[in-house]
């Protein structure tokens, strides 16, 4: 079969790849064939019959569906003959007879394919006067979606989406013939993590968005193409705004990233943007014990630089630190680290899972590579909860492309049900297993290579045998790895924190290198811009562009750009700063006070600045609170897990006086610079005296920082291009609407070296107690969840601990009871659940539940934690 096929559609010759459907070939020829059931991302169905066209053959022409027939050489298709028009009219007539005329109150009205096609291809007059059939109208099929059976035209798109992409056939066809309806089984609502996509692909208003229902008419919306900032996939989406409110989010096609899908969190969790509790003005606390009071930006910023300046003057630059989140834009992350490095003169900057995690700098080679892999190794990473659209791609690879999955995780995550192997590990125990696998694979490889030569070295052989003997339980994993032709390795923060995590990552890297796929190893962080934050150098030990702070050449290069060089000494980590390693802390978008212990540590600070959207637990302790904008309210770029730098333009007016994170930092820097007098060895210049408080900083010797001049986010991105070599070409305009992956060639080489790993197995928790396992939950109580719509908030579970059913039985505990869970770090009261995905001997407490129970118990410390579970 030739790779390309030429056919004629309405006298237009078009050449397309063999196997293309006629409907797509026509589109390539610029000819639109109307469709309802057909969808480019779903298997052909041929149910609606709208796309019937004439195929002209030697024995006359025949009608067939363009959505099911694949092209063949020399094919001739006619799409607008009288016969074809008559068929379209007839089909539309059949549909409309039984479709309610409630367009005026239908959310789809105005962007409805049925309306559009009726206008384009319909008869224009109604022939039928009889009563329409009555079916069940607008009732919930989940917390997020309503179904109107009268509007449904049975195109099966929702059914096929949930089956073909989600592998969760939760909507089915019930009954038969004219009685056929789509529905869910009673008591089993749709709970797929990307269920909202069925709203986008519904060609009528049968499926509607409960969060956005009746909040817009499509033609009134201002639509801004943007990206999601809730997880590192960076799905492309569209912000639909009306009268300064974010009314709706819908998916936007980017075939390289999210096809045209969006997860439910990305789609439905947007009401926080317009939430009444958003911070609208800066707040200051005049003295300890007093309440925060509104202030002007000028006063608040002066308060910040005055206090930071005082503390730096008294205690040195290293008494100041900054904790950011990796949710913020590249521009914010870059200016944050620059503020500390170039102005304060300290490397005390970090984010949660920042310097504590040994991350590969390069991210995933490409999301598209998932489909090309025959083995996907997931270590401490649960895409179903952490990155649902990545989960879709992986499931698709497993079901359609025959990829095997090797899941290494303390919990039997949902993806472990696909062909491959599940290797249970204790938290922190990943390194032991990975090292065993790596060593055995290296040895096998060495033995193979030696096979062509004379006898292999006896020591090597002996080593192989001992390792293989040790590995009985690793055997399925070993066999999968040994057979893999195109493996892909992805690990997440849960396997990579702390010292044990560093060993695990080294062992995993060794494993990938031993198989010859060191370039197919990726780290996926928890927060949306984890990759960008690392690229920007939002780390205590790493400069922009993934260079260590100890690299003098890089410091010199940055010094030329900034006017001053960053300090050579690595700064304090997140944990060190949050535990009181500094006297003044600047927190941007993070919430270290979520736990009681975290809050206690912050109490000891001399000065705390918090820049955020809401008055978080941390902001409540702050001396100055600065209101920041959300991703939807300011321009910014974000770098996803495959190093794709994407634009997130402003789509809505900022709430109150809130300002973009980067703009707050720029304004702060301007005032900081103004208050400093620097002896440059030339002319001393004091540009401005703070007029509200005459106070002069001591004269500093050395080069002067260059002035900060960023009128726009794009100006910050321009400077990022100079500071971060791989970003050199990534200007705002160049990114376009689909983003651009930064090239690894300018930066780093894939690991090629095998580093020895010295590791011991992790001991199980002592009898009667459990090893604490934590990890992400899609519907957690993360920073923005409490401010979502009611339907969204309902999805967050009551804080719970789950045990294996066998453990529950053995401990004579009953599901639903309240239990006290105690570790060396604290204790919490939780609801007890049974969950077979939780391995015996472990206790599962998801991260970021209300009250931060997992964090309180010490789950993110990167070391095994044993807990006791007792009835209250």
């Amino acid at each position, binding site marked *: 079969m030739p790779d390309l096929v030429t056919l004629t559609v309405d006298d237009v010759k078009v050449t397309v790849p063999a196997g293309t459907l006629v409907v797509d070939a026509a589109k390539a020829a610029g000819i639109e064939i109307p469709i309802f059931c057909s969808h480019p991302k779903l298997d052909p169905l041929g149910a609606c019959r709208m796309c019937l066209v004439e195929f002209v053959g030697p024995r006359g022409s025949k009608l067939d569906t363009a959505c099911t027939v694949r092209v063949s050489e020399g094919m001739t298709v006619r799409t607008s003959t009288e016969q074809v028009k008559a*068929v379209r009219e007839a089909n539309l007539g059949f549909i409309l007879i039984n479709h309610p005329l409630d367009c005026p109150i239908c959310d789809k009205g105005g962007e409805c394919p049925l309306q559009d096609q009726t206008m384009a291809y319909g008869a224009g007059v109604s022939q039928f006067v009889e009563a329409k059939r009555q079916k069940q109208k607008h009732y919930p099929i989940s917390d997020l979606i309503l179904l109107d059976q009268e509007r449904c035209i*049975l195109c099966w798109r929702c059914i096929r989406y949930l089956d073909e992409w989600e592998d969760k056939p939760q909507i089915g066809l019930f009954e038969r013939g004219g009685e*056929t309806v789509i529905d869910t089984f009673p008591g089993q609502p749709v709970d797929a993590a990307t269920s909202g996509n069925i709203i986008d692909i519904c060609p009528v208003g049968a499926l509607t968005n409960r969060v956005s229902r009746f909040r817009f008419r499509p033609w009134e919306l201002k639509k801004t193409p943007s990206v999601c900032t809730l997880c590192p996939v960076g799905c492309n989406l569209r912000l639909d705004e009306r009268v300064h409110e974010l009314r709706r989010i819908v998916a936007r096609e980017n075939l390289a990233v999210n096809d045209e899908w969006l997860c439910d969190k990305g789609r439905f969790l947007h009401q926080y943007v317009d939430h009444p509790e958003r911070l609208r003005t800066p707040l200051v606390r005049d003295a300890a014990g007093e309440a925060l009071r509104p202030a002007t930006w000028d006063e608040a910023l002066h308060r910040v630089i005055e206090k930071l300046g005082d503390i730096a003057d008294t205690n040195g630059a290293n008494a100041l630190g900054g904790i950011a989140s990796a949710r913020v834009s590249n521009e914010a992350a870059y200016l944050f680290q620059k503020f500390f490095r170039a102005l304060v003169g300290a490397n005390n900057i970090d984010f949660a899972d920042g310097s504590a995690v040994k991350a590969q700098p390069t991210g995933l080679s490409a999301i598209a590579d998932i489909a090309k892999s025959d083995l996907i190794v997931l270590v401490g990473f649960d895409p179903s909860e952490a990155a649902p659209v990545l989960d879709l791609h992986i499931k698709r690879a497993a079901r359609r492309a025959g990829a095997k999955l090797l899941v290494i995780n303390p919990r039997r995550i949902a993806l472990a049900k696909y062909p491959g192997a599940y290797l249970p590990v204790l938290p922190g125990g990943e390194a032991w297993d990975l090292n065993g696998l790596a060593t055995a694979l290296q040895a096998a490889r060495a033995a193979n290579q030696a096979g062509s030569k004379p006898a292999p070295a006896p020591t090597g052989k002996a080593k192989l045998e001992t390792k293989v003997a040790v590995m009985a339980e690793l055997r399925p994993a070993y066999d999968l790895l040994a057979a893999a032709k195109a493996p892909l390795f992805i690990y997440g923060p849960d396997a990579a924190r702390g010292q044990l995590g560093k060993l695990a990552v080294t062992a995993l890297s060794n494993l990938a290198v031993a198989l010859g796929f060191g370039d197919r190893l990726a780290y996926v962080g928890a927060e949306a811009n984890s990759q960008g934050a690392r690229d920007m150098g939002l780390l205590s030990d790493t400069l922009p562009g993934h260079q260590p702070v100890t690299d003098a050449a890089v410091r010199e290069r940055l010094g030329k750009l900034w006017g001053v060089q960053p300090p050579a000494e690595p700064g304090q980590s997140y944990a060190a700063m949050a535990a009181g390693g500094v006297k003044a802390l600047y927190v941007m978008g993070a919430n270290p006070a979520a736990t009681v212990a975290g809050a206690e540590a912050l109490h000891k600070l001399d000065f705390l600045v918090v820049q955020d959207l809401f008055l978080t637990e941390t902001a409540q302790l702050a001396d100055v609170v600065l209101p920041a904008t959300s991703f939807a309210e300011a321009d910014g770029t974000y770098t996803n897990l495959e190093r794709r730098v994407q634009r997130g333009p402003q789509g809505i007016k900022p709430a109150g006086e809130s300002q973009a994170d980067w703009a707050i930092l720029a304004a702060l820097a301007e005032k900081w610079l103004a208050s400093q007098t620097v002896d440059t060895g030339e002319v001393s210049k004091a540009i401005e005296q703070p007029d509200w408080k005459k106070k002069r900083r001591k004269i500093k010797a050395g080069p002067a920082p260059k002035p900060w001049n960023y009128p726009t986010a794009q100006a910050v991105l321009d400077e990022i291009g100079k500071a971060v070599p791989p970003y050199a070409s990534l200007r705002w305009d160049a990114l376009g609407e689909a983003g651009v992956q930064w090239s690894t060639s300018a930066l780093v080489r894939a690991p090629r070296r095998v580093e020895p790993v010295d590791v011991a197995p992790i001991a199980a928790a002592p009898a009667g107690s459990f090893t604490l396992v934590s990890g992400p939950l899609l519907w957690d109580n993360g920073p923005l969840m409490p401010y979502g719509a009611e339907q969204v908030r309902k999805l967050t579970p009551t804080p719970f601990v789950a045990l294996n059913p066998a453990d529950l039985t053995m401990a004579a505990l009953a599901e639903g009871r309240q239990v006290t869970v105690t570790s060396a770090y604290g204790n919490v009261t939780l609801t007890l659940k049974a969950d077979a995905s939780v391995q015996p001997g472990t206790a599962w407490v998801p991260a970021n539940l209300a009250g931060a129970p997992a964090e309180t118990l010490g789950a993110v410390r990167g070391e095994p934690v044993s807990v006791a579970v007792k009835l209250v």
Partner: protein
Amino acid sequence: MTTWQPVLLANVNRPNSEKITTYLAHGGYEALRKTLKMSPDQVIAEVKASGLRGRGGAGFPTGAKWGFIPKDAPVKYLAVNTDEGEPGTFKDRLIVERDPHAILEGVIIASYAVGAHRAFVYIRGEFFLGVKRWIKAIADAYQYGFLGKNILESGFDLDVSLHRGAGAYICGEETAMIESLEGKRGEPRLKPPYPAQAGIWGQPTVVQNCETLVNIPHIIGRGAAWFASIGTEQSRGPKIFCVSGHVNRPGNYELPLGTPLREIIYEHAGGVRMGRSVKAVIPGGASTPFLTADKLDVPMAFETLAAAGSALGTGAVVVMDETTDMVEVARRVMSFYVHESCGRCVPCRLGGHNMLHELDIIASGQGKRANLARLEALTRGIPGITFCPLGTGMCEPVASGLKLFRSEFEERVS
């Protein structure tokens, strides 16, 4: 009058006809013994030479169908369609209940020919007795060594399982039947791929109507030449005609293809009740267009019925006398198809519903000319645009009713 010694129905009236011993006592499974000494290709060649065409309705040449099965496919299946449900048709039920081994012998021979080691019998759910008879027949065939491993020491293995439908006419469509066999809703599949390429669980599958298979042992046993000598140019062999309606002796009649319709009605089925005259005949089951009394001399064969504007279909002859209300007949047939539409495609699901709606109004006497016009438009608009032939077939009786008995429709509307 054609004198024909029944072959296909030779056993059905014998006492204990369903028993394997009865079947064996009358030459049963001899054709199988003969088959197992032939090569599969020889069997296919014999069936091709016989000119046998499928008896399920579409009339596809059986030997050609077997030839489509890829020789090198590692797994191949045979499926037997005994999901008889077309109104007017009652032949399969008779064979399954009275002579299941006649089908089973055909199943084994056909499986041997195409290289299938697994056959699936799909039976209409309502055939309670047939289900029992099939189970017993299959069990006995295993006991006698006609099924299982190394059948009659030939080295050929075949397992047969029975799958009971549950009330869905559409499962007579071969791909819908396959879906149902797999435990799903009986909705037709997109073709291609055809079952010969990817049928049950994606494996090449031959689907045959049970009457077709009953012919196979006779073709092998008596030879293709014998079979080909019966019938007409394009319609070879004997056929079971199910005669019902206004005749004196309704029933199944096995006759050579090409037997004139008049002979079937008047000589075999005893003529029209009370000596009335024929108004209309459905010659091949409810989806075939009506024939009027002037067409009674048509030979009952694929090509001749097509020329007469109808079709042989399943060979189910429904006779209607001069008193028959044709509007009601059309409405009743329509209501059957609307009930049996799977609901997948728009024109069948919604168009069919609309047609029935118009027919209901017209039959009730409340209709206007506009209803008739709309009905007529629908019968022209739906055929050819539906997903499977059911939607097209549902229009035929109404369309031909409107064409041939227009005045009866017009009298009902104002």
